[in-house]
């Protein structure tokens, strides 16, 4: 222990670094070279060897890739009928079959809720409550030292395992050399299949950060992954879209083949230069890239794969926002259907603008007519109800929206991109007495330090507080070098693995809503932890929705006036009715 210049007690520990905690038992160079000579990694080896004459040079250039494999992947051995992952669980890694086969099933999602969660028991919670140090943000020194993660693919209970092995209709089989779970790992989205080992298997599990890094260093591997996504992922994604359900596998594969994948807007839409949240509404509308323009010919059906879209309507002197669309929603459906019905031609009735970054799957009108409307028209007509603000009686709806007091709320939510939040902390300021019970409850569950700040953006009487909103598309996850910030497999909450966090601040800087805070950490005696250069050790902290606590979220449960609620901000109706 030492006293630093500021005379507060401090203790020097080793600063945590990336890959201090490897994913599993370290792989040997020999094993990795062998791996690189097999599918799907042989492209990496081929790509790197093409211009390299001597072996030493090649080794040097392959070193970063070897490091990725050593730290971001692990080999797991599983017996037959062992579940690998479950449909609807969030995917943080992909599995490459080194030996054996893996079967993919669909339809196990209803059983997922029956899985045991990682919540602490009442007794466990009571013990940790009694043991909790008085100082905030106390960490064990031992935890700061590197340790090896062990274990195998988990996340499924025994009862569910029994159920899974009773599944019969295999959707697909992943053979030796194939990859399972890559799409959801790349997109950090829920699994679309349930994977169960068909026989004794050797699998290489790679974290999504490893995949990202591999794609960053190898163009060939990136192309391979994108091709794979196009062949498999796109088809799976399309099959989940309601207007495409029930059209048959053959039609679906034709649609996937003809579809064009397009991206709009900047990935880092909140980089320091953009300053988009401080712009006026008109300026924001100008900044946002237009995907489809009002009064243009509706030449395609556009399905949102990722991100949000603002729907606007031209008025004589301005352009107003009438709503927003989210992943899975369609653009141009109403117009295409209207034109298909020979009820007279109409052009696009609205403009569609990318809020932040949007990925769109574009299906040409002829393909839509031939493969969707011809076989599925009734179902498509029914789905139009979802887009009531875009349909026939739009002028009436529009005036309602404009006159409606909720228009202010809608605009604020869209302009500040709050529609990204699925569990935003909303405080009714007309009911909040400022008793701080929510803060105390949060603090009691999280190292004596609350994970939110009771201030934020106020929209009329509702305050959207600075607490993690558990976004649909969490930007904070993207840059994390260690994978410390990730989605909980079961509930999809965005959480931080404190042991792996190196305090690099990437997630805190990436969060557009300033909902992640860096904190200094202390040992049991209250000494601040410093590194060898006398700089404090930091950790990223944020709301985890009390996912491990028996009572969650504590802030909402603790409010004696019902003034605080965690709400999905895409559900405007729920927000308005709760606030009224």
């Amino acid at each position: 222990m030492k006293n630093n210049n500021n005379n507060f007690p401090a203790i020097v520990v080793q600063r945590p670094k990336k890959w201090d905690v490897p994913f599993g038992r370290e792989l040997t160079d020999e094993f990795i070279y062998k791996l690189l000579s097999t599918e799907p990694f042989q492209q990496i080896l081929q790509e790197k060897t093409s211009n390299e004459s001597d072996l030493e040079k090649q080794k040097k250039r392959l070193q970063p890739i070897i490091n990725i494999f050593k730290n971001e992947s692990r080999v797991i051995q599983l017996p037959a009928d062992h579940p690998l992952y479950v449909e609807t669980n969030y995917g943080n890694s992909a599995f490459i079959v080194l030996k054996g086969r893996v079967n993919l099933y669909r339809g196990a999602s209803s059983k997922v809720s029956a899985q045991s969660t990682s919540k602490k028991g009442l007794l466990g919670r009571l013990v940790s409550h009694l043991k909790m140090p008085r100082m905030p943000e106390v960490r064990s020194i031992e935890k700061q030292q590197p340790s090896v993660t062990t274990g195998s693919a988990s996340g499924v209970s025994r009862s569910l395992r029994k159920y899974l092995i009773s599944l019969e209709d295999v959707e697909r089989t992943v053979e030796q050399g194939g990859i399972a779970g890559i799409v959801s790992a790349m997109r950090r989205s829920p699994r679309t299949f349930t994977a169960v080992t068909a026989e004794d298997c050797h699998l290489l599990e790679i974290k999504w950060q490893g995949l990202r890094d591999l794609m960053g260093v190898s163009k060939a591997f990136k192309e391979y992954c994108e091709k794979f996504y196009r062949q498999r992922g796109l088809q799976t994604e399309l099959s989940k879209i309601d207007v495409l359900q029930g059209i048959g596998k053959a039609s679906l594969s034709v649609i996937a083949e003809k579809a064009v994948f397009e991206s709009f807007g900047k990935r880092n839409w909140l980089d320091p230069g953009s300053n988009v949240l401080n712009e006026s509404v008109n300026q924001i509308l100008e900044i946002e890239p237009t995907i489809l323009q009002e009064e243009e010919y509706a030449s395609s059906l556009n399905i949102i794969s990722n991100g949000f879209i603002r729907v606007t309507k031209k008025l004589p002197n301005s352009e107003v926002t009438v709503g927003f669309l989210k992943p899975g929603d369609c653009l141009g459906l109403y117009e295409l259907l209207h034109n298909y019905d020979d009820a007279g031609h109409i052009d696009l009735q609205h403009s569609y603008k990318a809020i932040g970054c949007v990925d769109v799957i574009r299906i040409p009108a002829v393909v839509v007519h031939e493969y969707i409307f011809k076989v599925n028209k009734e179902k498509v007509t029914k789905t139009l109800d979802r887009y009531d603000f875009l349909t026939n009686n739009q002028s009436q709806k529009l005036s309602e929206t404009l006159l409606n007091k909720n228009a202010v709320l809608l605009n604020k939510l869209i302009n500040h991109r709050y529609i990204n939040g699925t569990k935003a902390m909303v405080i009714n300021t007309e009911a909040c007495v400022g008793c701080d019970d929510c803060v105390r409850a949060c603090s009691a569950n999280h190292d004596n330090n609350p994970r939110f700040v009771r201030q934020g953006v106020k929209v009329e009487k509702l305050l959207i507080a600075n607490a993690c909103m558990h976004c649909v598309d969490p930007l904070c996850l993207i840059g994390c070098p260690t994978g410390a910030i990730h989605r909980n497999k079961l509930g999809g909450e965005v959480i931080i693995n404190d042991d792996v966090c190196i305090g690099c601040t990437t997630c805190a800087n990436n969060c557009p809503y300033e909902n992640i805070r860096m904190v200094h950490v202390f040992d049991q005696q209250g000494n601040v932890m410093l590194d060898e250069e006398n700089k404090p050790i930091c950790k990223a902290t944020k709301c985890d929705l009390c996912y491990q606590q028996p009572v969650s979220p504590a802030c909402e449960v603790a409010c004696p006036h019902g003034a605080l609620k965690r709400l999905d901000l895409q559900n405007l109706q729920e927000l308005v009715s709760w606030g009224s």
Partner: protein
Amino acid sequence: MKKLALRFFVVSLAILILATLYYFQDIRVAQGVNPAYDNGWFLFVLLNLLLAFNIRKKLIFLPLGKVKTWADIHYFLGFLFIGGILIHFNFSLSGGLFNSLFLLLVVLTLVTGGLGLYWSRSIPKRLSNRGEYVVLERIPYERQEIVNTMERIVETSLEQDKTIEIASFYRDRIKPFLLDVSDKNDHLVSSDKPMASWKKQFNDLKIQLSSHNAGILDQLWPYVERKVHLDYHHVKLTLLRKWLFIHIPLAYLSLVFMLLHVLIVFSFVGEV
């Protein structure tokens, strides 16, 4: 509509319970038993349940339902307690100094509770209509920010125009007002006097100033307005927190007195 129906049900239930308690007395009298024992124990249980609310708030990790539900039950039990105590004391003050003291404590607890409930429901709405939502602990920082900004404006005005009217006004009137919470009593009763007084002072000064200085004064006004709002929030938020520091100790003291009351009663009838 649903809320109204629920309220009607709750009030009906409370009346039903109290009516049962009241008419049960006659039955007990007919049986030759003093009914005060029954409703006394009823009150004892009620008081403990009322106190349990505070404990539940501290043990948030226990899966015992939302605190809001507990709060609603707490209010309901509080109203029951009022009725129960009236029945127990037979709608009259009797029984000497100890009982009078005990009753006074209970009444004070109930009054502070009732006031707290009223304030909790009415004050947030008023706060929402006056200035921005602010956390009590942040008010000193906000105040400091106002001081810094206003001083910058005044300094700039001095550099641009060598007249000292604005600077004097700031130094003599505004600065002392900015340094601490002002007009506490006025804010306590939600009076508009502080704002009106500042408005008058600004208007009175404005007519004496050059157009340039009047412009500077206009720049200062929003900050004074913000400070008046901050003072209002400070007073009201403090009130919303402090009433519990009276209500809870009074409630525990009531429990102590109730236990003593039980001891005394049973000592006199020879059961202890």
